[in-house]
């Protein structure tokens, strides 16, 4: 393959990406715009929390404990007098991080299983598909708990457990996708033209299978945030002094009726982030690359 061909090929791909991004922006709609805004805010809070909350999330002030929301503290204060708003903002990084990490583990493993099933021999596909279906049948949280019971509690194990528990779902989507691409006319045409099997795999199958992953991954991060924070809420993930949203909920658990803001504020953050990521993921998947 000459250098010129490579250049024009990558140029063509860049143009395709540009066109897709434009079409996607045009198709976002009002709901999608709001979601994109919320996601942007969460990402910004994760990267530079000081921008929204300059205070220290761990600064204790026992005299100010259990202050209800008011002018001094928008979301009130917790048992040690720490500002709940500051903690929610500073928790964005950890919550988004664990969600993304769990999704990366799930996607990576799903990629391996899904591609193995779609590209391997028929018996492998049959065996893997069966296993994937059964694992998918187990509720993710239950599967994650099974893994945590063996691996032990903590941030690392809970992220790993959620990642492993979501892998079958990704494998399922990826297998179907890779299979439809492998049997598509353009791959057959390329093979007939003399393109070798590995080259066809990297040139056609990989890019066309991975495209939809952006949408699936966005959706997945939203769901992973909810599952990881559920584990923290149950006391099996991040532990209370940390401003991770699930851990904050765990700390507020016993004060629901007296200090509702301890629960409402971080829960609102989880729900908003998850809903926005889900909505955005759906909009993304509605506009497929040509």
């Amino acid at each position, binding site marked *: 393959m000459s250098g010129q061909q490579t250049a024009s090929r990558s140029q063509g791909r860049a143009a395709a990406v540009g066109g897709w991004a434009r079409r996607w922006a045009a198709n976002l709609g009002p709901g999608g715009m709001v979601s994109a805004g919320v996601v942007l805010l969460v990402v910004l809070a994760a990267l530079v929390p000081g921008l929204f909350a300059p205070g220290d999330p761990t600064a204790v002030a026992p005299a100010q404990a259990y202050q209800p929301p008011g002018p001094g503290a928008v979301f009130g204060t917790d048992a040690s007098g720490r500002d709940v708003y500051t903690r929610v903002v500073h928790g964005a990084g950890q919550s988004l991080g664990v969600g993304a990490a769990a999704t990366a583990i799930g996607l990576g493993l799903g990629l391996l299983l899904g591609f193995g099933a779609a590209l391997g021999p028929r018996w492998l596909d049959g065996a893997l598909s069966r296993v994937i279906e059964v694992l998918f*049948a187990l509720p993710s949280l239950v599967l994650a708990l*099974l893994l945590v019971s*063996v691996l032990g509690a903590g941030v690392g194990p809970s992220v790993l457990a959620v990642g492993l528990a979501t892998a079958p779902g990704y494998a399922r989507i990826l297998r179907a996708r890779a299979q439809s691409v492998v049997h598509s006319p353009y791959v057959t045409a390329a093979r007939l033209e003399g393109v070798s099997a590995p080259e066809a795999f990297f040139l056609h199958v990989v890019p066309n299978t991975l495209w939809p992953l952006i949408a699936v991954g966005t959706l997945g991060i*939203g769901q992973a945030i909810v599952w990881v924070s559920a584990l923290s809420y*149950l006391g099996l993930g991040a532990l209370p002094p940390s401003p991770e949203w699930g851990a904050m909920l765990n700390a507020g658990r016993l004060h629901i*009726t007296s200090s*509702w803001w301890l629960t409402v504020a971080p829960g609102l953050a989880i729900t908003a982030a998850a*809903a926005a990521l889900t909505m955005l993921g759906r909009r993304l998947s509605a506009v497929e690359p040509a």
Partner: protein
Amino acid sequence: MRAVLRWLLGRLAAAALVAWVVATVVFFALRAAGGDPSEAILGGPGSQASEESMARVRQEYSLDEPLIVQYLLQLARTVTFQLGDSYARRLPVSELIGDQLPGTLALAGLGLVLAWALALAVATLAVSARGPIARRAVGLLRGGEVVASVMPHFWLGAVLIAVFAGGLGWLPATSSDNSLRSLLLPAVTLAVPVAGFLGQVMRDGLEEAHAAPFATTARTRGASERRVLWAHSLRHAALPAIALSGWAFGSLLSGAVVVETLFGRPGLGRLLIDATHARDVPLVIGVVLVIALGYVVVMSVADLLERVVDPRLRGRVEAVRTAPEGEVVS
């Protein structure tokens, strides 16, 4: 008759497969955890299990045998439901599960009924909407469905407790028995996210059915909109929702884990959480197995129901749909 037999065999195979997967995952996870598996079964390095109990576990789980023999024995135990004793509670696992099962089934059952009722109400309201303002409201409703479907149980439940138990004082904040008063808040908490999913599916189905030729035919014959909806469209819209009920039940059970903890309610979910905290591996395996098999049973019932509602499916061998399209986790 042969079709029925084939169907039953298929269901049994599915159940066996579930047992195999649970046994395999546990087997390899226990080895991957590192250290002595007998220690892991007894609650990890922190538990400081005595030499005698470790020797007992080693014998019970045949840990001195070659790996392949250990694996086959684990399979045999799982398939024959020899769940063993809980190490934290020193009681047979089957007994512990049997005690907790009814409460969780009552909760998940009521949750499923509420979810269906909510989804049905939302979907029928949406397709009956006329006029620009109503259409706009339906647009908002779509967003509401998405928000409802991702809403974490632990948060929704906490808000419901704060409002209805704390603020208004109408219902108890903790739930201990199976009376309706005590079940209502936890069941609503479970139902809302599932209703969000089912509502989307049902609304899409109803909208599609309303535009289908058979609906037009019924209208030209003089049927009222209400009759078209209830006598013709609903049957079609219900199908995908029924197919998803198996999935929904799984979602309700994993929700029950959180909701039972939140409302201080005894049940299978609480048992699973406590066992996970104590790293009581035999008990965890038992609960997971029961939940997974429950899922197979519910899927089979959903499959049968689908055939009752749609005669076209009666020749089909196996259930097809297991999850909402594009959903990654159940």
